[in-house]
């Protein structure tokens, strides 16, 4: 065991990640025939630094791999030229090196899975949030003092008023500084994309150039966490469905090499992240549908997003476009898409800069207050006469008929009677708008949103809670959830058409893991073995897939996941009479007896440890449990 401090290890790991990213990007440039002038020196330098640093922190294996990379580069350095044939093996060595760097770096069984080198960031976020809590409390405390002294006294005493004003300014400054600490540049997640695009393009037989711009754009750390998957999905869709193969492109008069761009920029109080390709765009029929409904993203999300005629192993599975859309909406953002036949596709994710602080519209329903991100509310209307349309209540707002939902019903509260003339918040995109009725609108306040805590992460419908200036707690409603549930008692749930028709006899397996790489690995192994595989990126999404009638024969789940972890998922499945007997295989990096015991107690049917993970073990276990 080495005696390196965790802090030093974190610094090493972060630096290693950066260097590995630069090595990969440089290798990709060499492969593309556009090596930077000092490519070999640059590669050599990074490999050398990694060798030294790894050895210093006691990671001998990593050091040896870095050394072997140096060995491969040495002759090239003498010749002054790196043969493109070497790129593949060097990339593989880079992967091995990354594994060595990370794999040996999780000595504690509860550490997050290896290839997420931002665990230190998580700790830091907690600390930042604690500071944010303290600042928020200080603001409230200041108001309390002002209240005690009395507003009249404050105004009549010039010196007192000045002191209080100064305190307020200091607190504002402090709050801003703390919020600033929660943001990180987009570049903290873009390092992996060039490599992912290369691999995906290679796999699909496409030629793609990825240009990334605006990576210095700052975003909330919490947002960045979920964003990587969403962007990966958009890139995958572009490569699998949008971009044509080189010959087709040539025939259409386009350059053989397709251009894929990832571009981020601040736009007002939001950040726009754009993924654009110059591929074939949507089909004429989808285009017409989108014109009719007024929302391309709605049509694509519903259709399961498949512009290609054939079925590709890459897209149409995994997180669907509707999941990307949902994810954007759940953090108060939006997904927009633009495309025309033959003219490529542009997907734009619009996000708030920070999740932590925003203006909330405070409403009252059934004696309780709720907050809505004000950006999600189009307008507030008084509800007069309601009409029913196909059995659903709706309200007319300036000539448009909008379905009417009750906030209490939408979040699962007791629906007490609404007043004779309630108010309603109009929300959502044109075409899918809803008016959410409440007793009355109370006001508007800038709030710091906090998590409901570990006990309540699985409660749907809320972004969190906030403490108002009067010291009371207000639940902050998830606008996307409320929109989905508005008037659910009267709505008919339409089954989502699946993107890919599959043979009936294949057993259905649900793969749940928050890491894209692990998910895809398991998916491809099971897929190759003839199973019909669907994926989910956390327990909550998995539960949704199961309850949406996924009729799975088996679930393969990770243990450590955000939102709802593997044990939570297991407990939920076991407590649901309809699915209680569904076999669940837990796959995890943890190998301790304790975790095995907890898994077994929660009712896991089998337990595979990632370190011991191999294809045959997974297939054998799955085959045994499904009974074939």
């Amino acid at each position, binding site marked *: 065991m080495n005696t390196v401090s965790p802090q030093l290890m974190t610094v090493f790991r972060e630096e290693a990640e950066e260097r590995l990213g630069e090595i990969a990007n440089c290798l990709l440039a060499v492969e593309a025939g556009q090596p930077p002038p000092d490519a070999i020196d640059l590669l050599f330098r990074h490999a050398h630094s990694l060798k030294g640093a790894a050895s210093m922190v006691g990671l001998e294996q990593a050091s040896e791999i870095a050394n072997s990379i140096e060995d491969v580069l040495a002759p090239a350095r003498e010749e002054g030229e790196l043969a493109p044939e070497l790129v593949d093996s060097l990339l593989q060595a880079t992967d091995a090196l990354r594994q060595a760097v990370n794999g040996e770096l999780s000595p504690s069984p509860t550490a997050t899975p290896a290839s997420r080198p931002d665990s230190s960031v998580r700790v830091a976020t907690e600390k930042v949030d604690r500071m944010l809590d303290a600042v928020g409390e200080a603001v409230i405390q200041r108001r309390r003092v002002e209240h005690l002294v009395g507003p009249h006294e404050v105004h009549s005493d010039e010196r007192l008023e000045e002191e209080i004003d100064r305190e307020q300014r200091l607190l504002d400054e402090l709050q801003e500084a703390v919020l600033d600490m929660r943001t990180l540049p987009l570049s903290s997640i873009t390092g992996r994309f060039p490599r992912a695009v290369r691999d995906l393009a290679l796999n699909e037989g496409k030629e793609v150039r990825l240009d990334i711009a605006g990576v210095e754009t700052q975003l909330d750390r919490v947002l960045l966490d979920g964003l990587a998957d969403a962007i990966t999905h958009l890139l995958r869709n572009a490569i699998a469905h949008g971009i044509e193969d080189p010959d087709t492109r040539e025939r259409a008069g386009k350059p053989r090499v397709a251009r894929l761009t990832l571009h981020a920029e601040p736009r007002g109080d939001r950040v726009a992240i754009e993924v654009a390709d110059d591929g074939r765009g949507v089909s004429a029929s989808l285009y017409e549908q989108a014109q009719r409904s007024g929302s391309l993203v709605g049509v694509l999300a519903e259709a399961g997003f498949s512009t290609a005629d054939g079925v590709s192993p890459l897209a149409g599975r995994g997180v669907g476009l509707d999941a990307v859309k949902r994810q954007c909406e759940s953090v108060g953002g939006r997904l927009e898409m633009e495309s025309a036949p033959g003219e490529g596709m542009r997907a734009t994710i619009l996000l708030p800069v920070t999740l932590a602080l925003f203006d909330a519209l405070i409403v009252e329903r059934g004696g309780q207050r709720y907050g809505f991100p004000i950006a999600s509310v189009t307008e507030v209307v008084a509800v007069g006469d309601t009409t029913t349309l196909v059995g659903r209540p709706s309200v007319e707002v300036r000539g448009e008929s909008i379905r009417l939902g009750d906030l209490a019903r939408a979040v699962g509260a007791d629906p007490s009677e609404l007043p004779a003339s309630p108010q309603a918040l109009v929300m959502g995109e044109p075409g899918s708008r809803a008016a959410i009725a409440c007793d009355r609108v109370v006001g508007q306040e800038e709030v710091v949103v906090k*998590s*409901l805590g570990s*006990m309540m992460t699985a409660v749907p419908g809320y972004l969190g809670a906030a403490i108002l200036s009067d010291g009371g707690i207000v639940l902050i409603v998830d606008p996307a959830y409320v929109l989905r549930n508005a008037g659910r008692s009267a709505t008919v749930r339409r089954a989502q058409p699946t993107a890919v028709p599959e043979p009936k006899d294949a057993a259905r397996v649900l793969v749940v893991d928050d890491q894209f790489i692990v998910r895809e690995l398991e998916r491809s192994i099971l897929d190759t073995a003839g199973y019909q595989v669907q994926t989910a990126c956390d327990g909550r999404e998995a539960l949704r897939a199961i309850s949406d009638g996924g009729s799975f024969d088996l679930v393969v789940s990770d243990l450590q996941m955000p939102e709802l972890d593997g044990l939570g998922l297991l*407990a939920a499945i076991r407590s*649901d009479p309809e699915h209680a007997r569904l076999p669940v295989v837990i796959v995890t990096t943890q190998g301790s007896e304790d975790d095995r015991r907890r898994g077994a107690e929660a009712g896991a049917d089998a337990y595979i440890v990632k370190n011991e993970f191999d294809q045959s073990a997974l297939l054998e276990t799955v085959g045994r449990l499904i009974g074939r």
Partner: protein
Amino acid sequence: MYLRVRLGSEHYALGLEHVLEVLELGDLTPVPGAAAAVLGLHNLRGEILASVDLAAVLGLATTGQARHLVLVEDGHHRAGLAVDELFDLAALPEPSATTGSEFLLGGALVDGALIGVVDVPAVLDSVAAATVSEAA
């Protein structure tokens, strides 16, 4: 050492290794959609704290007289457990494991009265799990 509390007419004890502090119950904000045993959210100096109806978890009739919160933590979760009355800190004889409740480590006999020793992690896990299944 244990913190002894009262729920209705029964006496219970919470291991001090899980107890961080005791608080007045105060105003709670209910959370629609959460597990039935979640009473609501408590403002603990700016931190949002879930408060749990301990009597409901243990399967007792809720007295509606809870006046205090015991802030507990088990490494996974952190919550306030609502209790009717706080007694004292006391050492207890080794609890015998014959209570038949999954939420008790056992019962300890003190001066002829039976005190249930609460399994705090089991209580917290069950509430978190119940929250999950209601969400499903």
